[in-house]
């Protein structure tokens, strides 16, 4: 039943939310906090670290250093990648299948209240050549609401706006965004919830005007055999941007043995 709901919802809207395994989520949470504690020199307060209130413990100028440190440490030996796959396993199976191509590392985003240095303007991931068959896994480590979360547009609205961008080669995306602001959807999630979405939907984030900091992880996944861009020289392809995950014996057999029609 839950499976049909996920499939229907995703097929229609390109996005679906769900509750995650709390034990794994806590494990990630604890790991992030213990890593932050190792960077005491970069913190402004000695109080116990809370991710929601992280803005009280750090200066904006040190934020990127902490983010880069967490990113490197979490991705060591694919620790965080494996956790993400555990958490999103059923959604990935339902939407993409088993044999996958995955972005090389899991991304970490930290949005402090009123920090304009980490705003990600409206875009679709395929604007830079990423596959239109890509699924984005999105896991907040805190509750996110409105401006502390991300925005997106529904498929029909996205297509209309993307056509406008394609039609005018010198269009300003912010003007198009403002013009369509009323159609915006916010991805509101409680702590313990996650989402998967097609990044073809126009999405991004704005200045965080809420009281809490946002910590979130994201990862791009696609089926190994779904189409990649065919733009000459574009790097968003298998081997450069995506790596195989869960390769099946048939694929490995054909990599090892060069049978061909030519």
């Amino acid at each position: 039943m839950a499976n049909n709901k996920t499939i229907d919802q995703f097929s229609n809207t390109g996005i679906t939310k769900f509750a995650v395994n709390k034990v794994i989520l806590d494990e990630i949470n604890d790991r992030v906090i213990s890593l932050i504690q190792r960077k005491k020199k970069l913190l402004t307060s000695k109080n116990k670290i809370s991710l929601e209130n992280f803005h009280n413990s750090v200066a904006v100028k040190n934020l990127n250093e902490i983010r880069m440190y967490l990113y490197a440490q979490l991705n060591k030996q694919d620790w965080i990648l494996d956790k993400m796959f555990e958490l999103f396993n059923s959604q990935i199976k339902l939407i993409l299948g088993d044999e996958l191509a995955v972005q090389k590392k899991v991304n970490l985003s930290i949005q402090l209240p009123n920090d304009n240095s980490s705003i990600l303007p409206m875009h679709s991931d395929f604007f830079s050549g990423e596959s239109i068959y890509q699924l984005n896994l999105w896991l907040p480590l805190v509750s996110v609401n409105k401006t502390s979360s991300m925005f997106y547009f529904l498929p029909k609205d996205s297509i209309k706006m993307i056509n406008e961008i394609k039609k005018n080669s010198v269009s300003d995306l912010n003007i198009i965004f403002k013009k369509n602001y009323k159609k915006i959807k916010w991805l509101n999630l409680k702590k313990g919830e996650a989402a998967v979405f097609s990044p073809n939907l126009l999405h991004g984030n704005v200045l965080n005007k809420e009281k809490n900091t946002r910590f979130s992880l994201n990862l791009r996944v696609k089926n190994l055999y779904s189409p990649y861009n065919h733009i000459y020289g574009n790097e968003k392809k298998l081997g450069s941007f995506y790596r195989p995950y869960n390769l099946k014996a048939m694929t490995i057999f054909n990599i090892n043995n060069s049978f061909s029609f030519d």
Partner: protein
Amino acid sequence: MINNKKKLVGYVTNSNFNEKIIPIPFQNILLRNYCKDNNFTYVLPYNETVFKNSYSQLITLINKLDKDSAIISCSIFMLPENENHVKKVLKLLKYKKTYIYFLYENIFLNSNLDSKKINFERKLAKLNNVFFNDDQFKRYLNILLNKS
């Protein structure tokens, strides 16, 4: 105008420019290194869309620039092909009292003179295809040989 900027925002593309393709992570390294060596703060780049002849990200970026920021990019060949579109870019840069610095050619764009220089350089590069390609050369050589 050029001296009062503290931050340079990257502008990158994963399409080819003047027959070159540089993966974005490497463009980032080049641009970041320039900023480091010249005491600018490097701001993470806007990535141009892959749509044919689209410069929306560049226009969006210029319109969004803060007072203390300019743009850094690898090459003048990342600018629009269409000269009127370059004029539009220049007009916006002037309005925002800012510039684009192109690392590879070491050229700034913030005046009509710069724009002329850039146009000249780009037309010069096009000559490679018009005059100096092998076929043309061979045809020319044949004419010369037949005459002698």
